[in-house]
C-alpha cells in the first residue's frame, strides 16, 4: 500500500542530495515561485483559499483565509514557524533538514502574496542542524538571485532571515513567537487586539505560517487547487505529514491522504503494536489533544471534522501510541509535567493549575493518593478549562493551560478504574512509576 507523496517526494527519490540547490532546481524547483511573481496578490490568495490548505502547526485554520485578513498598513512581515515543540512531533524537522529549498520557495510565494519584503524563519533552538541546512539553502538562494534585491529579475525585493530560538515550547504559539523574535520574553499576546494579521511583528501586519503549510505552496501553484483537493478522498484537502511514535513497530514520519482510518495508520502504515501487544490508547494530534481508545475510535477516518466530532483534534499530526503495558496515570503525569514546565507564567489558571495537576498526579503515583484526588483533578482542570470540553473554553490567554487538561480528562474518562486505584493508595508502599524500576 502506498500513497502519493508531495512534500516528501524529492527527499524520497533523491535521499543523498535533496537538500542541494542543484538537485532542487533539476527537479523543477523554483518554477512555482517564478510563476507566482507573475500573478497578483488577489490571484494567489484565491488559489490558496480554493485549495483548502489548512495550517499544519496545529490550529488547522484555512491558510488562504489567514492571508486575506492581512490589514493594509505596510510594511508587512512573514514569519515561518519552525518552532516545532509539541511532544510527539518531528515532521517539520525532516522538512527543514531534508528539503530546505522547498521551504524557501514556499516562503517566496507566501511573501509575494502578502506584499512582504522581510521574512523570518524561526527555528527552535534545539534544532541547530536543521537550522544550518536552512541557513545554507538561504545563502545559496541569495547567490542565485532568488533572494535579495530584484529576485528572479523582477523589481521585487525579499530578504529572508533565519532565527534560532532558545528553548521555549510556548514560542510555537504565534504571538509568543513574535515577542520572541522581537527579542522579548516569549509570552503570548492577547487576541484581540493583537491578531498578527493586524498587529503582529513590531505591531505591523504579519502572517505566521507553519513549515509544513509553507512547504505545500509550491506544489499548489504548480498543480492547481483542484489537484490538491483530489489528494484526499474527503472534505479535507492535500496530504498531511504525521509523526508516529510510541509503542508501534515502525515509528516515523508518514505523508498520507486524509480520510484513511486510525486502524490503517496504526496497524498498516506504522506496522502495528510492538511485540504484538494490544493497543490501549493513542493521542491523535500531539500532547495537547484528548486521547482516543480502540473501542470507540479505531475505525474513524482521520479528518479534521471526524476528530472534532469525537472530541479531539488532528493538531500537529503527531500520533503517540500506547500499548496495554502502559501505566496511563504515569503517562498523564508526564504530559502534565511538560505543560507545567513550559507554562510561561502569565495566567494564574495555567501557571498554578498545571503545577497543581502535576503535584496531585505525582502524589498518586508515589503511593499517597487519596479518595478526593480524582475530584480534585477534575476541579483544578475545570478551573483551567471550564467544563473540560473540546475545543476548550479557556480561562487563559493561549491554549497551553487547557492542553494540560487533555491528558487528565482522558484518564478520568477512559481509565477511571486505573486512576481510582491510585487514588486509594494513601499509606501503602510506594508504587512503581513508569520506567523506574
Amino acid at each position, binding site marked *: 500500500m502506498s500513497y502519493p507523496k508531495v512534500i516528501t517526494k524529492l527527499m524520497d527519490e533523491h535521499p543523498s542530495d535533496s537538500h542541494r540547490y542543484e538537485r532542487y532546481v533539476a527537479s523543477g524547483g523554483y518554477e512555482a515561485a517564478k510563476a507566482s511573481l507573475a500573478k497578483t496578490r488577489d490571484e494567489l490568495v484565491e488559489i490558496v483559499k480554493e485549495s483548502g490548505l489548512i495550517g499544519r502547526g496545529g490550529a488547522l485554520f484555512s491558510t488562504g483565509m489567514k492571508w486575506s485578513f492581512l490589514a493594509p498598513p505596510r510594511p508587512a512581515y512573514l514569519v515561518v514557524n519552525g518552532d516545532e515543540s509539541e*511532544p510527539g512531533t518531528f515532521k517539520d524537522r525532516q522538512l527543514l533538514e531534508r528539503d530546505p529549498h522547498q521551504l524557501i520557495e514556499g516562503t517566496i510565494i507566501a511573501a509575494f502574496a502578502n506584499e512582504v519584503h522581510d521574512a523570518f524563519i524561526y527555528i527552535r533552538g*534545539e534544532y541547530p*542542524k536543521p537550522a544550518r541546512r536552512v541557513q545554507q539553502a538561504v545563502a545559496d538562494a541569495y547567490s542565485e538571485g532568488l533572494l535579495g534585491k530584484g529576485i528572479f529579475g523582477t523589481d521585487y525585493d525579499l530578504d529572508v532571515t533565519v532565527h534560532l530560538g532558545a528553548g521555549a515550547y510556548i514560542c510555537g504559539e504565534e504571538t509568543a513567537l513574535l515577542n520572541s523574535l522581537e527579542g522579548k520574553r516569549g509570552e503570548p499576546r492577547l487576541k484581540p487586539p493583537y491578531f498578527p494579521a493586524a498587529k503582529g511583528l513590531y505591531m505591523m501586519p504579519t502572517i505566521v505560517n507553519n513549515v509544513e503549510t509553507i512547504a505545500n505552496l509550491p506544489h499548489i501553484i504548480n498543480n492547481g487547487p483542484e489537484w490538491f483537493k483530489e489528494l484526499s478522498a474527503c472534505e479535507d484537502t492535500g496530504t498531511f505529514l504525521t509523526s508516529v511514535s*510510541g509503542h508501534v513497530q515502525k515509528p516515523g*514520519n508518514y505523508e498520507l491522504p486524509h480520510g484513511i482510518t486510525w486502524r490503517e495508520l496504526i496497524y498498516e502504515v506504522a506496522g502495528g503494536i510492538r511485540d504484538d501487544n494490544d493497543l490501549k490508547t493513542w493521542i491523535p494530534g500531539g500532547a495537547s489533544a484528548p486521547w482516543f481508545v480502540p473501542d470507540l475510535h479505531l475505525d474513524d477516518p482521520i479528518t479534521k471534522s471526524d476528530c472534532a466530532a469525537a472530541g479531539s483534534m488532528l493538531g500537529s499530526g503527531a500520533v503517540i501510541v500506547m500499548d496495554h503495558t502502559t501505566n496511563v496515570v504515569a503517562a498523564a503525569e508526564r504530559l502534565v509535567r511538560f505543560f507545567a514546565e513550559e507554562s*510561561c507564567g502569565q495566567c494564574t489558571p495555567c501557571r498554578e493549575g498545571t503545577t497543581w495537576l502535576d503535584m496531585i498526579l505525582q502524589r498518586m503515583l508515589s503511593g499517597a493518593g487519596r479518595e478526593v484526588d480524582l475530584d480534585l483533578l477534575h476541579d483544578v482542570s475545570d478551573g483551567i478549562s471550564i467544563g473540560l470540553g473540546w475545543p476548550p473554553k479557556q480561562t487563559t490567554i493561549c491554549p497551553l493551560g487547557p492542553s494540560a487538561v487533555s491528558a487528565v480528562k482522558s484518564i478520568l474518562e477512559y481509565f477511571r478504574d486505573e486512576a481510582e486505584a491510585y487514588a486509594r493508595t494513601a499509606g501503602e508502599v510506594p508504587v512503581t512509576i513508569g*520506567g523506574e524500576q
Partner: protein
Amino acid sequence: MPLLYLAMREDGYLSENGMQKVADLTGITPAQVQAVASFYVMYKQEPKGKYLISMCTSISCFLMGADEVLTALEQSSGVPAGESDGEIAVEHAECIGACGGAPACLVNYELIEGLTAEKATELVQWLRNGQPETINTDEMQTLFGGRTSFDWAIKEENAAVGPYPAFPPFGTAAENSPTLEPGRGS
C-alpha cells in the same frame, strides 16, 4: 536573542559580564537582559563545562524507557540531572523532536536517537576518556545510536564546539567554510 548566544560563545555560558555587554549594546538595562535570558532554557547562566547532555524525558521518550537512560547517564557520569562537574553537565529536557527515534538525547544540542542505558554509559565514557573537541551528530549516532525518527540520509559536516547550539555565528566547527555565512548571507 542572537547577542545572548554570542555572549555564551565568548564565556561558555551567559555570564553577568556577558549580559552587561548585551545591555550596553542594546541600550537596555542588565535586569531587562536577564529577564529575557531567564525565560529561555538554553541560555545557561552558570558554567556547564565542555559537554551538556540533554536527555529527553517527555512522553514518547518516556514510553520507550527514557527514565532508565537518564539514570544510566547520571550514574556513569556521577552528575545528577541539573548539575555539572565542570566537564560534563546532565539535564532532563522537554521534547526535542526525536520521538520516532525515542529515547533520544542531545550533546551540545547535537542529536543521538535510539539510545539504550548501555549505550548512554558508553557515551559518557567516550566523552570522559576521548575529550572530543568537536561534537558531530553523525559520529555519535554511529557509535551510540539506534533507530532514527527518519532516514538522516545526508552526511553532516558541522559539529558543535561548546554547550550552546552550533549555528553560525554562535560557533560551529565549520565556521570558516566559505559558503556557510552567518546572518542574511548577503
